[in-house]
């Protein structure tokens, strides 16, 4: 039997959606800049401690030495005389880890609640949306502050607390997407050939709802990092793990005498979140053909 080639090679080949998204993402200088920025920060956090092997908790020089005064601590020292540069290099690990974990928790709870509410509608939707609204009236930072204070500040507690207070926005987004897609023809087609709810929710609708959720997940990482920073600034971070947040928290009393103790770790957080936000914006453009002209 011969295979008949039905495709006319003179016609342009349809682009795979992922390839198309990448092509658009690549054409955005801001998005590429964000990717570069985040890439550098992640690299520094991962490899930096091996190249610049100074213990960030070790006291190396006189307290509150300004940057560029001694070669021992080129970026100065904090209020205890610890090397700022060592803290900045290693501190990204905990901050990024908490940010990503918290974002994962946010996304998982959000998608779970949003998917069930948006797929089943009716009383399931009512119950889940009332719970979501309840969580939305609690000021997120205050709620997280209460949770972290009640259950000792450690990295897992901080990550879980941030996740617990920030999922409602994701849930609403997921719900809207599921409500939209469940009425489309291919879902009805799936149902008519006997696909069960579980299959329709996770294998049929979820993959098609993924684009806006990926954008939201990216931005959520940024929000979670800002959250962690805020909690740390209030003194609610793990005192045993060096993080940018911990540096900010312990330096906050000295800002008028030593500008660098909070400015530098704050700038690292700012650059990280900036990178994440730019990537998120780029992904949004890449996944949203309608918005492209703007």
């Amino acid at each position: 039997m011969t295979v008949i080639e039905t495709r006319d090679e003179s016609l342009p080949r349809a682009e795979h959606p992922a390839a198309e998204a990448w092509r658009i993402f690549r054409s955005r200088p801001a998005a590429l800049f964000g990717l570069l920025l985040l890439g550098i920060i992640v690299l520094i956090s991962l490899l930096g401690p091996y190249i610049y092997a100074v213990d960030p908790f070790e006291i190396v020089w006189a307290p509150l030495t300004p940057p560029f005064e001694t070669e021992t601590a080129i970026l100065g020292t904090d209020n205890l005389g610890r090397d700022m540069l060592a803290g900045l290099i290693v501190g990204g690990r905990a901050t990024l880890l908490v940010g990503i974990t918290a974002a994962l928790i946010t996304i998982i709870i959000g998608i779970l609640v949003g998917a069930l509410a948006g797929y089943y509608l009716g009383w399931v939707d009512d119950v889940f949306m009332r719970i979501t609204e309840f969580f939305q009236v609690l000021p997120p930072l205050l709620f997280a502050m209460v949770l972290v204070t009640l259950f000792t500040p450690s990295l897992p507690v901080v990550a879980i607390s941030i996740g617990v207070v920030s999922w409602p926005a994701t849930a609403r987004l997921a719900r809207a997407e599921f409500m939209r897609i469940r009425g489309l023809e291919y879902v009805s087609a799936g149902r008519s050939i006997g696909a069960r709810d579980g299959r329709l929710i996770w294998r049929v609708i979820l993959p098609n709802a993924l684009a806006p959720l990926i954008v939201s997940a990216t931005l959520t990482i940024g929000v979670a990092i800002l959250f962690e920073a805020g909690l740390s600034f209030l003194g609610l971070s793990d005192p045993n793990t060096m993080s940018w947040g911990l540096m900010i928290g312990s330096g906050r009393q000295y800002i008028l005498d030593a500008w660098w103790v909070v400015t530098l770790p704050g700038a690292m957080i700012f650059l990280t979140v900036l990178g994440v936000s730019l990537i998120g914006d780029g992904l949004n453009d890449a996944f949203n053909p309608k918005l492209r002209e703007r």
Partner: protein
Amino acid sequence: MLIWTVLRRLIYSIILVVAVLVLNFLLIHLAPGDPADVIAGEMGGATEEVMASIRKAYGLDQPLYVQLWVYLKNAAGGDLGQSFFYNAPVLDLILSRVGATLLLVFTALGFAIVAGTALGVIASRKPTGIVSNLVTVLSVIGYSAPIFWTGIMLIIVFASLIPLFPISNMYDVTKDVGPVGYVFDVAHHLVLPAFTLGIVYLAQYSRLTRASMLEVLGSDYIRTARAKGVSERKVYGRHALRNAVLPIITIAGLQFGGIVSGAVLVETVFNWPGLGTLAFDSILARDYPTILGILFFSAVIVIIANLITDLLYRVADPRIRMAK
């Protein structure tokens, strides 16, 4: 019927308030350790007598549902517990601070909405112009910078480089300036904190205004208005802006919890004597009744803000008023 809608929203709001109280109650019991310890705070100041009186007052020897009932009954009567750190009723502490927080929040919000809308409108006139790009850049920066960090940067600048605005507290206790002078003094102290808190939302609102203006400006009725010779100023001011402002009001209402959260950080940075600094001090002191009281009270503020936004929206937009 509008009256039924209002009534229904009101009842729903009350249920939410009760739910927040139940959450507070559960948090006290979920926390590791003896609830009496949690209520008394871990200051070590609580003697056996105090502990015994707490156990009695909260009915901690009773079954859980009885305790919950006692807790709700106390709260309904305005008793949010006693702060053992400040040695004062939690409600009194909160009421003495809430005004400063609301002043900060509303000033920041007003600034963000007015300036954000203006910037967004200017940007929408030339979608690829300098202002437009500036709005995009500013909004990404405003979104990415930790709010307390922005505040600290401003403090560093205004403490030594440009000593134009005070960087701490709400008023100058060393000066006796009279009531009018007091108002100006507070306003002077308000500039930096309100700017810090507002700039995050300014960034978002300018971007949102730009997007919705562009959408509205591309719609048919604007083309009609232009076709029949309505002046550009009226097209922008009367027709487009009115429609573009609605989403901002909705967002501002929805974000109220986030704004209160931001206020906590800004207050701590600028030593503004509101609920945020109270929360910060109570956390340092492990003064749980006060922290939980603040969480409850700020949730109530958010619930009221949502209720007002919702009702305003219904009054403002006839389409929503008619539906159901």
